[in-house]
């Protein structure tokens, strides 16, 4: 299981949680698992079967776009961070 950090702008769609546990050995599997439990969240962060262009996904601090994208492996007890842009200042 990995820990997925939900950004404040998406917490409503994730049942109000700051972080949730998810199953999956790759980013794709983890996001599919999330989509099943939180379909509203999936609607926000997925786009045409891939990650939406304005959401970044980090596994253990590394952007998955610099790794293998959706096929990036996610180890047990890894931290996955979802990061959309924040504008507030």
């Amino acid at each position, binding site marked *: 299981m990995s820990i997925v950090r939900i950004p404040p702008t998406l917490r409503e769609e994730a049942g109000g949680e700051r972080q949730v546990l998810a199953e999956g050995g790759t980013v794709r599997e983890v996001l599919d698992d999330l989509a099943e439990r939180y379909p509203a969240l999936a609607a926000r962060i997925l786009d045409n079967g891939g990650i939406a262009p304005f*959401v970044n996904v*980090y596994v253990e601090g*590394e*952007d998955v776009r610099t790794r293998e994208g959706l096929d990036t492996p996610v180890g047990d007890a890894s931290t996955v961070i979802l990061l959309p842009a*924040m504008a507030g200042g």
Partner: protein
Amino acid sequence: MPTYREHLAQIKNEIEQIDSRALSETLAADSPPLLIDVREQDEWDEGHIPGAVHVPRGNLESRIERTAPDRSEQIVIYCAAGNRSAYAAKTLEELGYEHVSSLAPGYTGWKRDGFPTVLSRSLEPEQRRRYSRHLLIPEVGEAGQLKLLDSRVLLIGAGGLGSPASLYLAAAGVGTIGIVDADIVDETNLQRQIVHSTARLGEPKVRSAAETLEALNPDVKVVQFEERLTSENADRIMGAGWDVIVDGADNFPTRYLVNDASVWHDVPVVHGSIYRFEGQVTVFKPKEGPCYRCLFPQPPPPELAPSCAEGGVLGVLPGVIGSLQANETLKLALGIGNPLVGRLMLFDALTATFDEVALRRDPNCPVCGDSPTITEYIDYVEFCAGPTHA
């Protein structure tokens, strides 16, 4: 018991002395010696030999190991007339320094004989008092403080982030602070925008900020831009010779304009953003790291981008993030430490935790990539991210 004169003569016999011509020649050679001026501050302020390092006689013993870690290094010491430097040379020999000499005619003789001298810019006495806590830090010192006084920093936004950032930058003596903000001070601002106050309600934020900052530090000159950043004014405002831009904007269209201008004008941007209890800080440095578009090539839809007016923010959160932005700005201006280039720092006020993710430059970035596709400013139209009504 010897007199001072006798003692001095004895010391001079025991050390090596050189004259102005010999010093001039050795300074021009391939490996010049370390030249130390041991006079008092006010003497140094009136002029010194080019290339000299200032270590007043009283601090010589405690500071020499930091100034000259290698005891086999060639060192020449001078004072006004060759007497204090003789004592200093003797002490350094006792400390194990192997190649020390004293300039016999001193600075007075050197100057009289027509050799070059230089007047350093140095701090005024009031500045030495005001910035004394900076001067005590080896990584800052007088040279660093003079750098700060010469620095030009532009702040986008005099709001939640701009308030603490501008206060700390002004306190630090950043000599020129530009502020871009078209808004006026509103009551809802005062829960967190600490550069303003109740007395300033209704005033333009740039004017309110200028009043606060110039009262805090008269060394600071605030340049006010009471306007909204757009494609029309971006070059005029952002291209005015800034050393660092501090992005404290509260909307995406501005942030993208700031980013694109910073890449085209080659100026680093210290980015900060906040929402409720969480904030982010990073430094976008052109050529060395990613830009904002490497991270987010396009703005998100309005539902994913609520502002503080819509979502709220804990008042102190921009204080933390804005202060971190000031910290990064000072590091960039001084050229010290490890700025957050390629690192996005995430702060969660509720759990009091910091996290970090790595940011990389995207070679396909539309603005800073190898084949840019965006070459002109874009005025994104912002829609309100409020609830839709039936």
